[in-house]
């Protein structure tokens, strides 16, 4: 279904679970396929930071990619239609979002001022109208909404049918729940911060991979002066996962997020942190110090965050890219 939209592009497929199972990829795609054996071979002991039996393993794909932009999508997400019935080219919209500036410093009431048919409203300072580089484009979903397990249990038949024709920048210092179902980002800018954490097999938590990455990414983007957009494009989310299974995975997360949000909201990165890697290592220290007491998991996670950066730098030797450069 995605062929007309994806075929021109290079695909990276990260196969989770049993590496001996064969994945069928249709003809005509230019792709690389990595299974657990490949991950272990390429990263060696550092492979410990890549989750097993959880979609969080996809971040391995971000690490091995050699491209500037990444688009990641869940395997139960399909092409949606806009209110006129036309199929939405999600990839094209993400590219538009990433190539045009963001406006994190002052809220524009007409949403993305760079879209045709919109502009900056009266009162918007001219000095801010060039905007900031866009690091992340967070798309949305029609049909099955991205609810947590308790909400799913209470509202099993709620469907998202409202098409909101807007892209907007999430203001600086505002955190948000980043969903990895329909996500694109500038890998050269923010790639190292897109670590999806330790989830799944052997871990006490699941379904918080994208949330964790989103909070880290937003804190770092705010620090480095980059923007995060949310809104269009929509994809069609077809499968509602089992809410009882979800509840088991998220259970700890629901309590932990009460502490995690204040932690990220209060996180301050020192001026000396000028690259994403430096910011991320600094964050990992703060995670260890301030969240280690919440649960030993966070100490393990902070160490995995460091391993991730080491692995990233090993696979992506620096070309001397300065902060904001690309």
């Amino acid at each position, binding site marked *: 279904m995605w062929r007309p939209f994806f075929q021109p592009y290079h695909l990276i497929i990260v196969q989770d679970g049993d590496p001996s199972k064969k994945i069928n990829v249709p003809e005509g795609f230019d792709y690389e396929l990595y299974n657990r054996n490949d991950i272990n071979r390429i990263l060696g002991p550092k492979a410990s930071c890549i989750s097993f039996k959880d979609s969080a393993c996809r971040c391995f794909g971000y690490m091995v990619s050699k491209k500037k932009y990444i688009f990641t999508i869940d395997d139960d997400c399909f092409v949606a239609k806009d209110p006129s019935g036309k199929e939405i080219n999600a990839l094209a919209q993400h590219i538009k979002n990433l190539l045009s500036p963001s406006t994190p410093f002052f*809220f524009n*009431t007409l949403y993305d001022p760079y879209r045709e048919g919109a502009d900056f409203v*009266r009162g918007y300072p001219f000095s801010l109208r060039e905007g900031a580089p866009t690091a992340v484009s967070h798309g949305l979903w029609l049909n099955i*909404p*991205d609810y947590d397990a308790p*909400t799913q249990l209470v509202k099993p038949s709620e469907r998202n049918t409202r098409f909101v024709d807007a892209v907007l920048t999430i203001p600086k210092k505002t955190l948000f729940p980043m969903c990895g179902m329909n996500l694109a980002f500038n890998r050269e800018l923010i790639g190292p911060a897109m670590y999806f954490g330790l989830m799944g097999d052997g871990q006490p938590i699941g379904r918080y991979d994208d949330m964790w990455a989103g909070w880290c990414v937003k804190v770092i983007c705010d620090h480095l002066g980059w923007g995060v957009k949310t809104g269009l494009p929509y994809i069609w989310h077809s499968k509602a996962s089992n809410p009882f299974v979800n509840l088991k995975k998220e259970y700890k997360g629901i309590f932990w997020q009460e502490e995690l949000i204040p932690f990220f909201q209060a996180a301050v990165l020192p001026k000396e942190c000028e690259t994403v890697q430096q910011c991320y290592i600094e964050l990992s220290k703060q995670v260890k110090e301030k969240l280690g007491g919440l649960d030993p998991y966070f100490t393990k996670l902070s160490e995995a965050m460091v391993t991730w950066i080491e692995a990233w730098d090993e696979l992506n030797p620096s070309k001397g890219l300065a902060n904001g450069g690309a």
Partner: protein
Amino acid sequence: MSPPPPPSLLSLAIHSALLNISRFSDLSSLPDPVLLELFEQKTLRAGKLTEKVLKLFMATGNDEILLFIEKNIQLIGAQRSSNYIGRVRCCCVFERECLFGPEREYKMSYTVKDGEVDIVIAALHSDLTSFMEEWRPIFSRFHIIIVKDPDLTDNLKIPSGFNVNVYTKSEIDRFVASTGAKLHFSGYSCRYFGYLMSRKKYIISVDDDCVPARDDKDLVIDAAAQHITNLSTPATPFFFNTLYDPFRPGTDFVRGYPFSLRNGVTCALSCGLWLNLADFDAPTQSLKPNARSSRYVDAVLTVPTQALLPVSGVNIAFDRDLIGPSLFPALRLAGEGKLRWETMEDIWCGMCAKVVCDHLGHGVKSGLPYVWRKEGGDAVESLRKEWEGVKLMEEVLPFFQSVRLPRSAVTAEDCVLEIAGMVKERLGSVNPMFGSAADRMLEWIRLWKAVTSESPTSKAV
């Protein structure tokens, strides 16, 4: 052992009241001993104290209850006057003690009665016939305040069949004379006179060159109903919900949204949008003379805390009790005129209102409803007359971003007074317009206090 005595009628009644506590709108007729038992013995112990229920008990004016609340319940941003009900910020993750249970016991929206709303219209055009007729299906159920721009010489033409109070130059002059008010109520700023005269809890204000718009299904938009919905459902400023307003039917909080923040806070300001002529500044409109706003974005969202925005007075509604003091005619451009892009007064007080809301823990929403803004004015002409205004924002935004209000500022009035002091100190030397704005802000608070203490907000009819 003898069987326990049957419950008394009184205890049954109190128990029944407890079960239905969220449905009451007025407890003041209850005898004091009953009220006390309902409050301390029953409601508190049953964990049924929510924001609305607390309001109910405080409204009875019972001294013992008020004293208990003062001693034992932490009120954030509370305001005490004989009529005003204390505002309490719901359980917030930043406050380690949970004030209320995470249950959303009341259905999260408060039913606003028509009698609690004033429509305030600044008449910059004398013939309001077509304006009023277009809005009749939507406005006629409300009380309307029309304030005629004192600079308008022609008589106002208003069709019959409305419950309307009109204020003209003579009323404004009389007020100014009797209070010694040093404020300008001319041009767009005449609407603030209407805010001052209003005795309602909610105000909805649209420019007189706007008419009802149609949505993406070609249905006429009831802008008043949408503003009322925005103001009577909670706002969510502490964390961004990617599905926008979670209280709209058909949507909710997304995965990853902390449960402790799902009660939201009271929305104090609702900023609507415009189709056709957008609210651009003169330079933008002159560069794109044919640019029209035609995209209907079906969303309301809370503008996050600490994020500032340019509040347009073209289509706005607010909770007068909560933030009436922070919407005022203070910043006047030297060449201020009778077209929106020749003014900044709404942008200025809107920034102030957002800072006040952030400090007091109230929400600000932006998005629906849309109104249709009619064509008018020559942007290039306006640019020739007044273009300084746009440059002022370069100072205004960093200033408001740096404002830190003290914890002792617990009312909107307190906050505005503090901000006025900071404006004088930090911006007064940058441009004399700011110094005058600060003076007018102080003057506004003086008048607001005088007017509201004389005749507080009337109870809904």
